[in-house]
């Protein structure tokens, strides 16, 4: 038999002015199981709480109903009070008779009647409340950062700084990411390498940071605080521990015609290579697609010249398994492929380049040693046309619906740099809008226009046609002047949209995190939890969550690190006890629940059941991980057999409320 206490709060006159609280207490006193029903001026006050605590002890209560303000206000207060009096905090229910009754109704009679009904529903519910105990699960004191660009590096540095071990998994031979390829950064125009490479070195030297370059995540199991991740260390045919990065092998390698991806294929590298001078780790890697030794066993030059014997043609992919408490995703972005944009002649003329290619062309470590030359004939360009929003803000299937955010600024930067270095070069920028929200951004853009006389033209380029004289005929419209323009340019630079890295989607599946339709990772809440994924213990850093520039990326990286550190600091995680649970005897193992779970909290196990006739039967049944489940209840409705139920909001509890209200 339940022994329920009901406590009706006056909230000064907030409730008492419109609801006859004494009548409510009196009426609820007659409800089944109610053994004490009292009213009080301020139930949330110290003395009000004591009233509740004393009643719990005195009447040996099995449930408490507080008729007061919204549970969003004081549910925790009363739960704590109950716990202090030795009652399980989840045996407390709140009837909201302030926000949802006294404050919205004027007539005392009907408001009182409604308050009684709300109280009755809470009593009916509390009859079925089960004492819940929040579970705990331990936290592995190690973080994984997936992606070694500036986002990943910053996150790793911050986490390491806090004293936790952190692993970076980078799919390329070196960390550094896109920022390493960039020449200068806006709006300060400092050299990207100058600010990035020290951080790369710092990361490599920090003993808490372990860099797995040329590696990929192949499997993720577990849940918050307790992930088990399999990392594939791809064979680079060079023993990382021995290679000193002296570079002799790269000099001697006879295979020199390999497109250099670091320079966007604008020049070549050797089959054994170090992507760039400041690579971290500075270790050579053999490209098996080009290495003649690996392809047909004839060469072996690098092996011969290597003084430390680091070359190992027989190296194979290695898999390592590690436990992590937190995972930060920092998989970054790529410019989209421009195959579908024939109108810009990207595939027809080498002088039509993307902005990232332009970065390399202008970079001192780039193919031309920093001198801007046309890729086709290595001549100095006199007229350059920039085309904005190539593939961004597109409604059609060719491009992306979103704004890539960084293009306006880097184009202003490019235009300005060109105009400064080559004042004889005319620069045209065709734009739809120029977006410059950011500290010193608009000033920067205005400088490009006003000080550097970059021709900003609102309008779209219709067609780029390579001509026999080597010029590129640019046909465009000037929307403000409402006229057609024809420009014979030497170079055309396309601000290609950026998109998430292709590795992100399979990774999201492994992590059971959500992605939007553009394959950007979805944050747990767009406003309030921007660096967490909906899956507990998985955080988002950088452009994998959406387009962003370097300062934003670094800010988010540090924020993600802070969240991860917050998690790693704990020895164990207290789980929300209001989670789903499956009645194995009723579960069909049909997988409906799993499909609607946004957290990947549901797995299936083959469980052996002892049948009543003493035989055994193995059945697939759902099992909810309480550390991962957030208690939304989507699974409870997806489950046709009703095996899935939710603690704190069970089917029977909600139906009891319905019954009580409709009585």
């Amino acid at each position, binding site marked *: 038999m339940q022994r329920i206490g009901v406590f009706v709060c006056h909230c000064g006159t907030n409730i008492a002015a419109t609801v006859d609280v004494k009548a409510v207490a009196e009426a609820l006193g*007659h409800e*089944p199981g109610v053994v004490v029903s009292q009213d009080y001026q301020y139930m949330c006050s110290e003395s009000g709480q004591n009233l509740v605590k004393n009643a719990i002890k005195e009447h040996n209560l099995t449930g408490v109903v507080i008729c007061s303000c919204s549970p969003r206000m004081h549910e925790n207060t009363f739960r704590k009070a109950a716990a202090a009096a030795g009652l399980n905090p989840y045996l407390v229910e709140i009837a909201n008779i302030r926000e949802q009754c006294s404050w919205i109704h004027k007539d005392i009679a009907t408001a009182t009647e409604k308050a009684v009904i709300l109280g009755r529903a809470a009593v009916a519910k509390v009859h079925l409340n089960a004492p819940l105990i929040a579970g705990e699960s331990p936290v592995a004191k190690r973080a994984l950062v997936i992606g070694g660009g500036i986002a990943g590096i910053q996150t790793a540095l911050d986490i390491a700084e806090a004293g936790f071990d952190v692993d970076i998994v980078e799919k390329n031979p070196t960390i550094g990411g896109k920022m390493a390829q960039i020449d200068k950064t806006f709006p300060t125009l400092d050299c990207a390498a100058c600010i990035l490479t020290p951080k790369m070195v710092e990361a490599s030297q920090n003993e808490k940071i372990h860099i797995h370059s040329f590696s990929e995540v192949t499997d993720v199991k577990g849940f918050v605080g307790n992930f088990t991740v399999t990392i594939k260390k791809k064979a680079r045919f060079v023993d990382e521990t021995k290679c000193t990065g002296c570079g002799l092998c790269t000099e001697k390698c006879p295979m020199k015609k390999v497109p250099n991806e670091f320079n966007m294929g604008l020049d070549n590298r050797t089959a054994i290579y170090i992507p760039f001078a400041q690579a971290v780790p500075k270790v050579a890697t053999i490209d098996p697609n080009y290495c003649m030794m690996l392809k047909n066993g004839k060469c072996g030059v690098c092996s011969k010249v290597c003084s430390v014997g680091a070359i190992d043609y027989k190296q194979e992919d290695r898999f390592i398994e590690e436990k992590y408490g937190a995972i930060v995703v920092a998989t970054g972005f790529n410019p989209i492929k421009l195959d579908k944009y024939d109108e810009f002649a990207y595939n027809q003329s080498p002088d039509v380049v993307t902005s990232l290619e332009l970065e390399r062309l202008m970079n001192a470590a780039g193919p031309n040693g920093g001198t801007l030359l046309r890729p086709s004939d290595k001549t100095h360009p006199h007229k350059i046309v920039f085309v904005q929003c190539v593939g961004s803000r597109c409604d059609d299937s060719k491009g992306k619906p979103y704004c890539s955010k960084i293009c306006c600024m880097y184009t202003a930067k490019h235009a300005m740099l060109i105009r400064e270095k080559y004042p004889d070069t005319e620069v045209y920028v065709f734009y739809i809008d120029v977006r410059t929200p950011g500290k010193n951004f608009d000033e920067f853009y205005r400088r490009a226009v006003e000080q550097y006389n970059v021709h900003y033209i609102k309008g779209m380029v219709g067609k780029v046609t390579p001509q026999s004289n080597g010029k590129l005929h640019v046909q465009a419209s000037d929307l403000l002047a409402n006229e057609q323009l024809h420009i014979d340019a030497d170079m055309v630079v396309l601000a290609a949209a950026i998109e998430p890295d292709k590795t992100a989607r399979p990774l999201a599946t492994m992590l059971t995190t959500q992605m939007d339709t553009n394959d950007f990772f979805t944050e747990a809440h767009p406003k309030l939890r921007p660096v967490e994924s909906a899956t507990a213990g998985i955080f988002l850093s950088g452009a994998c969550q959406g387009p962003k520039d370097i300062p934003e990326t670094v800010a988010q990286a540090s924020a993600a690190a802070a969240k991860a550190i917050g998690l790693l600091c704990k020895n164990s995680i207290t789980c929300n006890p209001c989670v789903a649970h499956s009645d194995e005897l009723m579960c069909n193992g049909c997988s409906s629940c799993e499909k609607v779970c946004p957290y990947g909290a549901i797995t299936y196990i083959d469980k052996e059941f002892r*049948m*009543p*006739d003493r035989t055994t039967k193995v059945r697939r049944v759902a099992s909810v991980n309480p550390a991962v489940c957030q208690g939304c209840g989507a699974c409870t409705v997806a489950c046709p057999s009703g095996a899935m139920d939710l603690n704190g909001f069970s089917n029977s509890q909600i139906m009891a409320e319905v*019954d009580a209200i409709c*009585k």
Partner: protein
Amino acid sequence: MLRISIDKIDSLFAAISEKQALYIPADRADGAAEYKKYEAGMKLSEKLNTVRSAKDFFFPQTENLVEFKMEGKKIEVKDIRQESEDFVIFGVRACDARSFTILDKVYLVEPVDSYYKNRRDHGTVVTMACTRPSETCFCQAFGIDPTAPEGDCAVWSDGSYYYFKANTEKGQAFVDSVSSLLEDGDTAELDKTVAKTKEIMGRLPLAKLSTENFGGDKLNEYFNSDKWGELSESCLGCGTCTFVCPTCQCYDIKDFKTSDGIRRFRCWDSCMYSDFTKMAHGNPRLTQLERFRQRFMHKLVYFPANNNGEFGCVGCGRCLSKCPISMNIVKVMKALEVK
């Protein structure tokens, strides 16, 4: 014999329904027949039988038993029984008429079921002799003569007239109440019809079905038969056979929370259901085999064991035509029979 011309049957129905509720088998939109409360213009169905049996009149699918008012620790019991009104069921076939005798043996033995008795006392059963039996009929196996049905009053048709004969006092009262509409007439045509029906009965595919080897004396033999597994393997465990059966009388008792109390009601239950015998700590009939066996053992062995050899089946053939997987008592009898 008292009779009425077939084309005057409406006036007879009108006369009966003036005094008490009259139920007759009538065709529904989907072609099947069911008992309906007579209203002017309603036609007597020509179908051999109704989908639902006539047991509904005395043992309805759900029936309120008692109500409780609960307040605090107090319980008040409210007897909600009410005296039934008089009613007539017209056109009950011989098989269904016999089913009442079988139900009586359950519900009218001590302690008498007052709910059943109440309806039984107030209902007059007017039966109708069969003229066009179907291939699914096997009432003969249980000693039922469809040309001479039981019931309070029996009715025959020869195609032109309905003939009436009271079997009980209640039946006589019924005949008396409508005697002004009846005339005396000879039965020569009727005798021919009956003879023809009897001849057809002999030619029915199940005419040879015999109950000779069933009954209470072979209890363990049949219970332990190795045929049950095969017979029950495709049984869906639904309640169709039970619910269309005129003699199945098992029920469940349940409580329902109404707006102001608890209403206890009973409803039909089926021994084919997996939770029929389920208790808090186990279930003695775990598999469909055991539940399937129970239903047929009950009809063919247990019931006769307790009721002087009377079987718990009347051969109406409803389960033969309605079982979703066409498993039925005839197949069971044929498979099981040991001579």
